[in-house]
């Protein structure tokens, strides 16, 4: 808890000095939803806005976990504070994970804003149970954090040019049903899309938020297996990258 508290206080103190950036981030959510609201009016597809609203929110959530570790490692390296962090008598992975704490709280704020805007400004009918919503996001968060950790490990070792982020992010937008249902894709792509855990997770989230469905244990099973797999990959890649960076003497360079 000390570790989380330390990063939380630090992040609050830093964010206080960048208030304008905070406001810009929040306004960005409003702009994004407004753009798709008017596109939905234009294309006249029934229930497109609720569909794309959940996709956009999930996309934010996914992008957050995919980039949070790489961005915070890179930022510490850029500021020159990375070595000082790794000098603390804590497991380096715990330091990196706790370093995402402040940004995570901001993400929660963004998600709440998404829901409030959709419900009260754009008139989306939400019929969800908070338990289902939180549990789907929790499992997805763990799964995505594993991928994000692989991405962060590449930045820790190679400093720039993270192919994981580029590839996963690109394929997520096209294949996971963020902006359109996967059944509009060509058969081969639709087949790949249906194997991806992100497609299943997004479909679950739409069910929870728009139809009031409660996911069953077997719905979670595939996501839990993926979460174990990605976290194991994240742990192993971080361990390798951290030790390689120490061997090269480049833990703090960017």
């Amino acid at each position: 808890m000390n570790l989380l508290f330390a990063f939380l206080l630090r992040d609050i103190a830093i964010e206080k000095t960048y208030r304008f950036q905070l406001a810009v981030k929040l306004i960005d959510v409003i702009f994004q939803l407004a753009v798709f609201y008017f596109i939905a009016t234009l294309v006249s597809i029934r229930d497109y806005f609720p569909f794309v609203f959940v996709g956009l929110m999930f996309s934010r959530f996914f992008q957050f976990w995919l980039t949070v570790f790489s961005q915070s490692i890179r930022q510490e390296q850029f500021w020159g504070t990375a070595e000082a962090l790794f000098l603390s008598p804590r497991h380096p992975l715990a330091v990196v994970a706790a370093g995402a704490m402040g940004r995570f709280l901001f993400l929660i704020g963004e998600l709440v804003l998404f829901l409030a805007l959709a419900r009260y400004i754009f008139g989306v009918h939400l019929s969800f149970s908070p338990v289902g919503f939180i549990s789907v996001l929790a499992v997805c968060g763990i799964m995505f954090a594993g991928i994000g950790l692989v991405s962060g490990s590449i930045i820790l070792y190679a400093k720039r040019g993270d192919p994981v982020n580029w590839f996963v992010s690109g394929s997520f937008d096209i294949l996971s049903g963020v902006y359109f249902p996967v059944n509009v894709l060509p058969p081969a792509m639709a087949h790949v899309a249906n194997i991806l855990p992100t497609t299943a997770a997004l479909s679950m989230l739409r069910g929870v938020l728009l139809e009031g469905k409660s996911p069953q244990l077997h719905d979670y099973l595939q996501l839990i297996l993926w979460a174990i797999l990605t976290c194991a990959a994240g742990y192993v890649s971080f361990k390798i990258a951290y030790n390689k960076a120490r061997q090269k003497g480049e833990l703090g360079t960017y």
Partner: protein
Amino acid sequence: MSICAVEVHKSFGFASSRKAVLEGVDLNINGGSLYVLMGANGSGKTTLLKLLATLIIPEQGAISIHGCDALKDPVKARRFTGLVYDAERSFYQMLTAEENVAFHARLAGVGGALFGKRFDSLCETLNISSFRGTKFSHCSSGVRQKLAIARALITDPPVILSDEPTRSIDEASKAEICNYLKAVVSGGKTCIVVTHDSAEAKMLGGRVGFLEEGKLKE
């Protein structure tokens, strides 16, 4: 032994551009003593300090800090060390002096009243009390160096590794920092001070080692 390094080898770079920096360095320092590490630029002084601080892994050799194998258990070894280094860039520029030191103290599990007591005492001894609430970016080089010392000492480690603690500061502050480090050592801590200023080495006293061509000579 408080600090023990045996046959430590370290080189950087790849293939033909590989450069050996340390070639079989041995170092034994008893608890409660001061060791001055000297050498020309690029002789490997900072590398040796970072190896002892577990920020770098050697290719060969063994390192033990306060009886702990630093290569096998670097996290535990870090509990026993405080590293004074890079005062200009290793702090958060947008935080105050106190917020910076408090953050690092909390990472090591030192918070609340204990932090307050130790920080008060360090500020008083290092003469930086009036800069506690000053943003780090507004602090002078001398204050930054003293803050680097405060950050290393706030966890009260038995071993202090100090990389040029008097770099770019005036003579009066230099003497102040040297006297403080000597007082820390008389209090029972083990301290390595890296410098290439022979006058400073004299002022500090203690054993002196020279790093030359990858070897440590005394």
